[in-house]
């Protein structure tokens, strides 16, 4: 996945900017802050989520972190590979380490999401 094309939240999630079902995950910065990820609690496919809702838990030896839904919609697919190998999130946060695919329901906007450059700048602050 090309990082420069993704949209980011202040809380370090990313999501694909377009498409019916959009992949989302956590940023390279987020996985680096957490360290080695040892467990991921993913939602069931079919779950409806609202933007900003905690819907995934990511755990490392340091901490358990909530992942917030970057958009409102339905979780249509989850990354089953993470169950056996949660470290995929560390190895390839924008590729094989994706978390779920969300089908947006159009009720939440993307205006407050950042492009890759703006997100990177926000980390420098």
């Amino acid at each position, binding site marked *: 996945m090309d990082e420069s094309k993704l949209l980011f939240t202040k809380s370090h999630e990313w999501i694909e900017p377009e498409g019916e079902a959009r992949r989302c995950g956590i940023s390279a910065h987020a996985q680096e802050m957490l*360290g080695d990820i040892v467990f991921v609690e993913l939602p069931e496919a079919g779950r409806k989520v609202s933007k900003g809702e905690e819907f995934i838990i990511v755990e490392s030896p340091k901490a358990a972190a909530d992942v917030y839904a970057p958009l409102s919609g339905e979780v249509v697919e989850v990354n089953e590979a993470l169950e056996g190998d949660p470290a995929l999130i560390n190895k390839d946060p924008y590729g094989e380490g994706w978390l779920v695919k969300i089908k947006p329901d159009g009720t939440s906007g993307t205006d407050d999401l950042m492009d890759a450059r703006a997100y990177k700048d926000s980390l420098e602050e």
Partner: protein
Amino acid sequence: MDRTEIPLIHEIPAAGRRGVLPPSAPPEDRNTAVEALPDHLRRETPPPLPEVSELEAVRHFTRLSQRNYCIDGQFYPLGSCTMKYNPRLNEKIAAMPAFTQLHPRQEEADVQGVLRVCHDMQEVLKPLLGLDEATAAPAAGAQGEFVGMSIIKAWHEDHGTGRDEVLVPDAAHGTNPASAVLAGFKVREVKSGPDGRMDLESLRANLGGKTAGIMLTNPNTCGLFEKDIVEVARLVHEAGGLLYYDGANLNAIAGRARPGDMGFDVVHVNLHKTFSTPHGGGGPGSGPVAVSARLAPYLPTPHVVRGSDGSYRLSTPEKSIGRMLAFHGNTGVVLRAMAYALSQGGEGLRAVADHSALNANYILARLPEVFERPFGSRCMHEAVVTVRGARKEKDIRAFDVAKRLLDLGFHSPTVYFPLLVPECFLIEPTETESKDTLDRFIAAMEQIAREIESQPEVLASAPNELPTGRLDEAAAAKELNVCCRF
């Protein structure tokens, strides 16, 4: 330190040795027990039980225990955990047969002494916290939180408010949102400002018609006093919510400031922190709860009360949330806390708070610059510092510093908590450490600061001088293997 590997007791090569030699069964009884077992339950071979003499067993476990890092041996500046010394007097009192030989099913008339201890503890807590009623029954801090939040829930249900949201700061202990959810609430997170204190704008934005209450620790987990607490209390009360005080950091203000005066309605106290009882470690703890008058009818049962004739008995408050555990709480822990309260007195408890803050500020003032102070140079009983600069410039993490401290003879402070400060340490020296000990710890941190500059590889590979080197924490979490198969 002796660095040789200690084998598991099963692996000590001593086949045939015994600590105890039981007499042989008479021939006519042999095999009858075995024959009574169904075939499929009999083993083919004897189990590989440890085969050691009594002395070997004693030495094995003593060697293991000598590798334990413990407060009785060394400084343990674990922030938020309050690893303070437990005076031996507490243990002496708690070991008295008059207490140890009691049974919770005895008649009230026969156990007046221990009921009085529980009652007196309640009476100590009420003026210390500035609240109207208390119970010493909750069996741990976490249960105290659950009791407190259940009382808030019961109050709202009783008054038909329909409120079901609890606000929790992002810097809170993880137990806070967990207790709120367990008591049936939804949790909303309030942000901290750049000064490490609650952001009032975020608070206002989260308050509303669903707000049932807020859970706060003061001083907070950044070791800072929430200066706006009176305004916070006003806003939350005006919005129709109640205030819950997490007593985890009460040891910093005991005798100086009272949660009740700040506007809190419910408080839980961790006796091991403010009153020097042993850390539970999964064993018996105690988390008394105190409440304002309007919440007193909801306290759990059994509640110890004193009758007009001076006798003590167990009662059930009028609208009690019910029973939280089988009997009356961990009275042995309450007894230790009472022994501490009586031996310190009010002045003593205030001195405890003062010295805990003095010690933390002394460390904060003297640590080298590489340990940055995100919230300034003053703190309460614990201090946050971060090596985020060293992370960027030298790729040294808080974790590396923590491991190097072990080499230098110190347990690390808490690392990576509070979560809002990257690469942080939370240092809590407690009041029971002398200036000499603090100076030795500071000297170790100064050595590490020099190593970050000139020999970062020493930190990256630490610990280098202990029996066990750096462990793979991710593998330990994922590939747990603690099973010894027989």
